[in-house]
């Protein structure tokens, strides 16, 4: 083996460079390079003597080994990662209770955040599931000044305006209009509503939505006066009504009084243009007269269509906006309805069309809940932060326990970076498991939230499959969490005085002050954040309580509302008012019914408003009031007090002079609180009636009209029997002594006996009103839940710190007791610490509350964001945290036996 003795410089280089090759690969690596170099060496020797030149060439080749070795560096990390992971799993399995607590709190924290984010994603961030949604733009009026008649959404237009836009626009490669309505599927008896989506011919084509079965509408389907249009049903309706049967095409469905044929089914992911609300049946706009039995929606100024278009390739929204402005005068001139109220004609003519992006559709849900959801996300984020502080605290405590282990490892040569990485891997493992569970949990939680927000009247449909945004959010959250609770303890744990740690037997007279400062800081942060959340929870709960107990001016309990429709009976117009009276008589005769009346508007379900003025004044002195048209007995049924004058009676009919009853807010606004009876008021011309004069015959107490949150507003009640041209439907209010089920059954039976074609829908007034404050209920429930969680976490955090403090200070406490400190002194020694920490937390938290709750003020009712009762209660609750969390450790401290404590020296 003489060759190995003459080891060339190149071989030495390989041995040297080999040091930086990851250990696992090192032997192999050296062998390969050595073999190649030796082989080449042998070859060269064989061919010609190894001269200097070839030796240099060999050396040059061997320097490539450095590049090779460098390239292998990343594998070093992979190697150690596996070791770290293995060790991490082992450590976590060893501390099962910690692992379970950590994973559960992370799963809950990440799950709650992800669930709320998922909802936000669905209502706010996602675009519609159609082709190139970013190219869509909505066309609507710049303001509502010129809008009179039946109003839908503030961005809706009338059919005439839509037709003009369609014919004049140049900005869109395709443009369509859509509107929604309900239609009864049941032939009589209780109503079964289908959610209708009326679309113009180019709707599906412009959106790029293909049918899942059969065909969708084309421009040819939507022509004025279409005689027998087909139905396109949604995937959901196809599943629920037909069980997904493929032979559904050609089946008949009766809507209104006519039968229509199913011609197609839309894809499962398509829910129409409104996020949060799906549809059951789509029909061309031209079909609405066939379904509704009249052409009011096409001919009259009813604002119910939303116009959306797909921009031409080289057109921007801005550009389209300019074109819409340019065509506005022509559109409104041509679309002006013949009998439009004179006062509004000018405003109508001067209305302006504007275009805005529509890629994410429209959404009532978004408008109602977006702000609340962002706030809830912030709250849930804070809870996660508190949970992180708790975990960091536990990890810090564990770091102290592992001080010797870490010192030993450092003494044996482990680098600090390596140790930090090792500790971080443990946190990472926790977070990965926690986040995975959290994302699974989020699916259930977000579904639960949707169920919470759905009502019988307004079922919510949201696509809640987690998309990249949701998963990215959860991942980001997990990484952040891991760094938050893992990094600081890891850095802290590896900063050990190796010699001191190895020397000491893990106990001193007082434990490391610095480490305690950090843990105290964490607990103070927890208390401060919890205070904010608890205060928020109290604010929202009290706000909900105030709303629920708000004085509505009428009695909600025991009132059943019945929406009754007898269109199918085809009564002549002059017979309708009489038939309505007869219906009321029939219901009144039902045993147990105390009183009954009908009204055009049911309280807190919205209604109509307009400007009125007192007779003798000019119209410019008028004010906006709310309207309602009610039958005699309405005030009795609703238990609204008649303060002055009289109720409507049978004499107030078409032939008699128009009469009205007003509320107190009206007299305050118009008459400075003087008696209104005998005054006359004027109503301006509307889209259906000329200008009218009403004599005020009565005064009733104030009632809420459109919204529980509003102040009392002026209301003018007119006699329903004096309304001309009323349709074949009424909303009946029934006050009954019987149980809910009995009342409904009895009324249903009675009405069906009158005529089986009468359709009806029942709802109790109280739950209906409660459904209007779902957002407040959501905020109160969730913030209450998170507040309780924060409270609990703060207790656990403080308890952990104090227990640990007592355990490490056993000697000190022992000495104190030996020197004559009483039990009470020792008890207070620990409890005082608890109180100091909590008070510092409260002092820090209070200014945060003042800063933060202002953001929530629009979600509060009857309270200021700095409601003293809520803030004080929250602060007191936090002091209770000190008591609850401090009691046990303090008592444990008093039980320290000085002899035992000092003997363990």
């Amino acid at each position: 083996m003489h060759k190995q003795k003459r080891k060339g410089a190149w071989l030495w280089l390989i041995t040297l460079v080999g040091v930086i090759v990851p250990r696992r690969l090192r032997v192999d690596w050296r062998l390969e390079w050595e073999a190649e170099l030796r082989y080449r060496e042998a070859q060269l020797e064989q061919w010609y003597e190894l001269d200097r030149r070839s030796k240099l060439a060999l050396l040059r080749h061997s320097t490539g080994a450095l590049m090779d070795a460098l390239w292998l560096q990343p594998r070093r990390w992979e190697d150690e990662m596996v070791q770290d992971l293995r060790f991490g799993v082992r450590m976590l399995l060893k501390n099962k209770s910690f692992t379970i607590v950590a994973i559960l709190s992370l799963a809950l924290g990440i799950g709650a955040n992800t669930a709320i984010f998922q909802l936000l994603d669905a209502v706010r961030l996602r675009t519609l599931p159609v082709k190139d949604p970013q190219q869509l733009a909505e066309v609507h009026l710049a303001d509502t000044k010129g809008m009179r008649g039946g109003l839908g959404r503030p961005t809706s237009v009338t059919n005439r305006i839509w037709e003009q836009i369609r014919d004049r626009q140049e900005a869109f490669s395709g443009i369509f209009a859509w509107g929604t309505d309900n239609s009864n599927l049941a032939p009589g008896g209780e109503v079964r509503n289908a959610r209708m989506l009326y679309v113009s011919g180019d709707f599906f084509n412009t959106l790029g939505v293909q049918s899942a079965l059969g065909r969708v509408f084309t421009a040819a389907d939507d022509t004025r006066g279409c005689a027998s249009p087909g139905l396109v049903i949604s995937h959901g309706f196809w599943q629920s009504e037909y069980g997904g049967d493929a032979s559904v095409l050609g089946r008949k469905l009766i809507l209104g009084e006519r039968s229509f044929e199913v011609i197609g089914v839309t894809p499962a992911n398509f829910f129409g243009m409104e996020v949060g609300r799906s549809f059951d049946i789509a029909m061309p706009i031209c079909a609405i007269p066939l379904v509704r039995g009249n052409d009011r929606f096409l001919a009259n100024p009813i604002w119910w269509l939303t116009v959306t278009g797909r921009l031409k390739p080289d057109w921007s929204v801005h550009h389209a906006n300019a074109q819409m402005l340019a065509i506005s005068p022509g559109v409104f001139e041509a679309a002006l309805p013949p009998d439009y109220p004179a006062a509004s004609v000018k405003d109508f003519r001067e209305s302006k069309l504007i275009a805005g992006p529509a890629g994410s559709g429209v959404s009532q849900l978004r408008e109602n809940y977006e702000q609340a959801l962002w706030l809830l996300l912030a709250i849930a984020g804070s809870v996660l932060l508190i949970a992180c502080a708790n975990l960091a605290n536990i990890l810090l405590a564990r770091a102290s326990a592992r001080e010797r282990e870490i010192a030993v490892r450092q003494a044996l040569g482990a680098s600090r970076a390596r140790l930090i990485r090792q500790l971080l891997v443990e946190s990472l493992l926790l977070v990965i498991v926690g986040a995975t569970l959290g994302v699974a949990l989020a699916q259930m939680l977000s579904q639960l939230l949707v169920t919470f927000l759905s009502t019988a009247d307004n079922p919510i449909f949201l696509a809640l499959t987690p998309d990249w945004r949701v998963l990215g959010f959860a991942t980001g959250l997990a990484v952040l969490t891991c760094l938050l609770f893992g990094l600081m303890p890891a850095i802290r744990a590896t900063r050990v005085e190796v010699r001191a740690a190895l020397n000491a037997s893990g106990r001193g007279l007082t434990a490391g002050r610095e480490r305690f400062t950090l843990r105290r800081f964490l607990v103070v942060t927890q208390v401060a954040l919890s205070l904010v959340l608890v205060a928020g929870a109290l604010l929202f709960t009290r706000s909900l309580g105030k709303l629920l107990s708000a004085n509505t001016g009428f009695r909600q309990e025991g009132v059943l509302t019945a929406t009754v429709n007898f269109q199918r009976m085809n009564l002549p117009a002059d017979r309708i008012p009489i038939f309505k009276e007869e219906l009321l008589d029939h219901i009144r005769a039902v045993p147990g019914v105390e009183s009954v009346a009908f009204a055009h508007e049911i309280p807190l379900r919205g209604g109509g408003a307009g400007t009125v003025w007192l007779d003798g004044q000019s119209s410019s002195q008028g004010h906006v009031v709310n309207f309602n048209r009610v039958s005699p007995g309405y005030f009795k049924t609703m238990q609204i007090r008649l303060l002055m004058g009289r109720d409507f009676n049978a004499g107030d009919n078409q032939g008699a002079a128009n009469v009205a009853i007003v509320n107190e807010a009206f007299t305050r606004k118009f008459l400075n609180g003087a008696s209104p009876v005998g005054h006359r008021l004027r109503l301006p011309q509307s889209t259906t009636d000329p200008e009218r004069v009403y004599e005020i015959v009565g005064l009733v107490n104030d009632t809420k009209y459109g919204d529980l949150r509003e102040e009392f507003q002026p209301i003018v009640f007119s006699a329903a029997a004096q309304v001309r041209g009323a349709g074949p439907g009424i909303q009946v209010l029934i006050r009954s002594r019987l149980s809910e089920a009995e009342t409904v059954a009895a009324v249903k039976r009675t009405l069906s006996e009158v005529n089986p074609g009468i359709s009806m829908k029942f709802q109790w007034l109280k739950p209906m009103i409660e459904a209007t404050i779902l957002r407040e209920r959501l905020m109160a429930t969730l913030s209450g839940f998170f507040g309780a969680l924060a409270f609990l976490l703060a207790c656990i955090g403080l308890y952990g710190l104090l227990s640990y403090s007592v355990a490490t200070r056993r000697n000190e406490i022992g000495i104190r007791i030996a020197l004559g400190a009483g039990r009470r002194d020792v008890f207070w020694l620990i409890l005082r610490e608890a109180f100091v920490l909590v008070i510092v937390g409260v002092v820090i938290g209070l200014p945060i509350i003042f800063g933060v709750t202002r953001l929530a003020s629009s979600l509060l009712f009857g309270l200021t964001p700095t409601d003293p009762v809520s803030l004080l209660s929250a602060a007191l609750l936090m002091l209770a945290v000190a008591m609850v969390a401090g009691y046990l450790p303090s008592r444990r401290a008093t039980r320290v036996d000085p002899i035992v404590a000092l003997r363990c020296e």
Partner: protein
Amino acid sequence: MGKTYLSYTMALILQAAENGYRYGFDIMTVTGLASGTVYPALRRLEDAGFVISKWERPSIAQQEQRPPRKYYEVSKSGRTALTEARKRFRLLAQFEPLVIDKPERQPG
């Protein structure tokens, strides 16, 4: 084993291995590339599954009184990748197999 985009250098090295130059140093000689290029490239090709490394039988090495050498064989997927790379780099096809007997310089 994700698909790796083959650069010209990588394709050249793969082609060399395919042509029978299976040792790192032979590939260096025949391609004219530096050892600091060839070896990392071989590692990447191996990671991508385009080449498989094997040790030669110890008996051969023992005869020549040197340590056993490691050689690289083109795998099936490597061959597919090479065919595709050939379409992109026309010159590769002209890379003909030759026999190395005397590298570096001719005797004389």
